[in-house]
């Protein structure tokens, strides 16, 4: 490999950290508390087969808020988004392909 030396260290990082105001955190906290209240409320009602959908739906919204604001995903570049979303794709794969087993299994 042809190389030459360089007198100074190379720095890739020039981006400034994004600063989020306190109001955003307070709104996020209030939203999480409200969603927790809704979780408790829906637990007292029977939605039949949609019980799990409702519970996981609310949980997903809460997780998204935490990831976007507390964990600053909203202000990150595409690469970070790719690494954040790829596990969701894998989760869909795990659930989807396992479903191809569970839903089509013949009774003995």
């Amino acid at each position, binding site marked *: *490999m*042809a*190389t030459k030396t360089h*007198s100074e260290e*190379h720095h890739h990082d020039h981006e400034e950290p994004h600063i989020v105001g306190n109001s955003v955190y307070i709104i996020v906290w209030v939203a999480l508390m409200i969603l927790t209240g809704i979780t408790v409320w829906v637990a007292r009602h029977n939605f039949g087969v949609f019980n799990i959908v409702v519970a996981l739906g609310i949980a997903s919204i809460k997780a998204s808020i935490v990831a976007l604001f507390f964990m600053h995903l909203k202000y990150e570049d595409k690469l970070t988004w790719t690494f954040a979303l790829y596990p969701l794709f*894998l989760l869909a794969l795990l659930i989807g*392909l*396992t479903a191809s087993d569970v839903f*089509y299994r013949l009774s003995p």
Partner: protein
Amino acid sequence: MANHTIAETLYVPYLDEKGILSWLLSTDHKRIGIMYLISISTSFLIAGISSLLMRLELIAPGKTIVDAHQYNVLFTFHGTVMVFFFIVPGLAASLGNFLIPLMIGARDVAFPKLNLGSYWLYLLGATILLISLLKPADTGWTFYTPYSIKTGTDVILLTTGIFILGMSSILTGLNFIVTIHKLRAPGMTWHRLNLFVWASYATAILQLLATPVVGITLLLLIMERVFGIGFFDPAKGGDPILFQNFFWFYSHPAVYIMILPAFGVISEIIPVFSRKPIFGYKAMAYSLLAIALISFLVWAHHMFVSGMSEVAATIFSFLTMLVAIPTAIKVFNWTATLYKGSIQLHSAMLYALSLIFLFTIGGLTGVFLGSLAVDVHLHDTYFVVAHMHYVMIGGTVMGFFGALHFWYPKMFGKMFNEKVAKVAWALIFIGFNVTFFPQFILGTLGMPRRYADYPPEFHSLHELSTIGSLILGIGVFIMTVNLLRGLTNGEKAPENPYNSVSLEWQVPSPPPHENFEKIPVVTDYPYVYGKKNTQEG
């Protein structure tokens, strides 16, 4: 010239500082790499001895040295230590740590303290494994339910140890991804990276994204044992096959965590000893990522006879065949690199060539097992044992031994005895094939795996396999002694004994603590041999 003299005066090899604490508290990626190397090599030798005991038990029908329960404990210990303590952390943690910063032109990894933390977690996991040996598990390395829920042996402690090892693996993967993204030297574009770095990157993605699944699965198993929750117990509404789905969702990608670094290793060795640029650099790089992606789609091919649905089995059989494409690209390109090359049969090259030959057998027998109807006959027979060992020893271990011989001068600044190394290679190659090829035949004849006994008609093939394992053991012993003797008696290694153009060979042997006196500026990819043939022209 005057500067050069100053640089030589300031040169302090990374190995110079003495004392056990200078190692255990070091954040130098090279020292951490060497500590992993010692740890995984020790695990390999211990688990290897347990396999020799198993083969001795099987030298004749009936009980010879251990009873059935002790045999179950032996194969569980062998599988667990080989998989979780040697081959999964194996090449990625030891060679990856040592080589990635040197290859990308960095002074260290992105998070050196986290790196040391990963190693401590590895040690903690290994300690817990040792404690669990007071009441050793007998479940096999796969911990299948319902047996793993019911057995009276210490499954909880062992799985806790593996859970902690998983955390070590995740942190190493995270560290390497950030290092490769952020710390590349000026001019080191993605298409100028060593293929070993590409392989480590693909491996790191798998470590980061697949390992949490096995961690959670083992936690569920522990909760089921401790609290009787019933995730996997049909009597409580659970599903034992769910355990297998979860387990293999990690453990099949884990197979590629094991093999991808070895692919990277021989992609470095072959161009150097063929004196030719690697054939199809970009195809080699992207096929590594393709293997990593496809590895997530094929897990249930381990479960065709478990009672899963036929629809799922058909889908997974089809998806399994996809892996053959990127893998075949790699085998073709290695062979094409050799074509008309000026080939030197250095011991490292012999191991690299062995990998191509043996991994091809391992890979093709995988196609048999991925085919639904054939798998029904071959599942859980010695055919699977032979296939797995052709992939894992024929692939990963050959790559590991090749890497040890190739980078030994750089790591330790010493040379080993090349003639002895070649004798050891010959014994290992012959011993391996004599051990495992008869097992393909045993499997097709119906010999099931994980049995301590067998009918007399299988005697001669089992005997042959045991004799092979002893030859293999002698080969590994000679290789180990040769490499250890090199540390004390070996000649001093030059900076670049093979005239490699790759960046890690442009620093002194052994490298100084800071790797590079000045961070280099990279102007080409690392396979410029013979006629100039860059990928970017």
